[in-house]
């Protein structure tokens, strides 16, 4: 259960760690106002009303890779993942299926089903038994989809690695990376950064062309890739701290592993 007080404390803790300074109330306020604005925008985006937003895309070679399709797009609760929808609709026609833990996101999933049933059909439940999920994802990739997955939040009973984030150990789930390895597809980190007013910016960073090329060093290669992602996530968090939307104790198990 996340209370308002706990959310304020987690905002304060994050801002302290990301800025290295004491945090004023106005900073915490700005953090929540940014979250509120992006949450409201989300409704419009999920209703396909994208044309009221100004979404910038840096059209570099990594974006070209995503346009060719068949990538694992690793995303985070930083900014708005939903603006990525612009790729799948009028602007670019790049389809994305979303790997989501429907059980842990039941409220969101129910809301999505009523707001935009077509979009809800693009959700792949990550609770599907792994062998079937691998087959399903393989089929989707072959049909020309990208697959998106949030990889910054760890749910109980999930496999994870522990890596330093802003100088403190945090848990990052591994399963999306394992699927990317099995499917031998490129992994690209994506961020939909909120810039203020109605402006968003899509950013892409290539993490690996193929995590599954070498079986003997696979675990090490996956570990390195997650480490690289965490570094990228940290860079974005430092650059756009008010886009950080993990309002819970992100380093929750820190005391138990010390």
């Amino acid at each position: 259960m996340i209370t308002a007080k706990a959310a304020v404390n987690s905002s304060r803790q994050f801002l302290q760690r990301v800025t290295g300074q004491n945090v004023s109330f106005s900073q915490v306020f700005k953090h929540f106002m940014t979250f509120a604005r992006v949450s409201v925008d989300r409704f419009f985006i999920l209703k396909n009303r994208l044309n009221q937003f100004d979404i910038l895309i840096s059209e570099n070679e990594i974006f070209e890779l995503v346009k060719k399709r068949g990538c694992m797009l690793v995303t985070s609760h930083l900014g708005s993942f939903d603006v990525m929808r612009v790729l799948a609709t009028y602007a670019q026609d790049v389809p994305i299926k979303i790997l989501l833990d429907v059980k842990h996101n039941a409220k969101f999933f129910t809301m999505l089903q009523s707001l935009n049933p077509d979009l809800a059909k693009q959700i792949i439940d990550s609770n599907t038994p792994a062998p079937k999920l691998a087959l399903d994802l393989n089929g989707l990739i072959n049909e020309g989809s990208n697959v998106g997955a949030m990889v910054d939040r760890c749910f109980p009973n999930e496999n994870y690695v522990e890596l330093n984030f802003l100088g403190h150990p945090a848990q990052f789930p591994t399963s999306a990376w394992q699927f990317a390895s099995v499917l031998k597809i490129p992994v690209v980190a994506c961020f939909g950064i909120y810039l203020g007013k109605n402006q968003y910016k899509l950013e892409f960073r290539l993490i690996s062309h193929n995590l599954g090329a070498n079986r003997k060093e696979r675990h090490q290669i996956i570990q390195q890739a997650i480490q690289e992602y965490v570094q990228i996530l940290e860079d974005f968090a430092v650059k756009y701290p008010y886009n950080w939307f993990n309002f819970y104790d992100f380093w929750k198990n820190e005391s138990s592993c010390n």
Partner: protein
Amino acid sequence: MSHALTAEEKELALLLIDVLDLEDMSATDIQPLAPLFDPSNPESLGLDSIDALEISLAVAKHYNVQLKADDENNKSIFHSLRSLSTFIHAQKA
């Protein structure tokens, strides 16, 4: 039960060697009843969960058989080369 590979098992063994990049093994190096995944057993191939997914994909492509069962059944299906082969050919029949 025989420890020699049947023709079907040999075909599957070659597929596993190819998919899993076990280049230093031949089909006859895989004991039909040895556990595929148990790292504490010296006879085991010591495969891991990612290997299991690779095998699922390869079996779907090669045999057109989908290993979609839940985790509990997978344990017995994936136990050994023989159990996997038996399952595949039962599905095909």
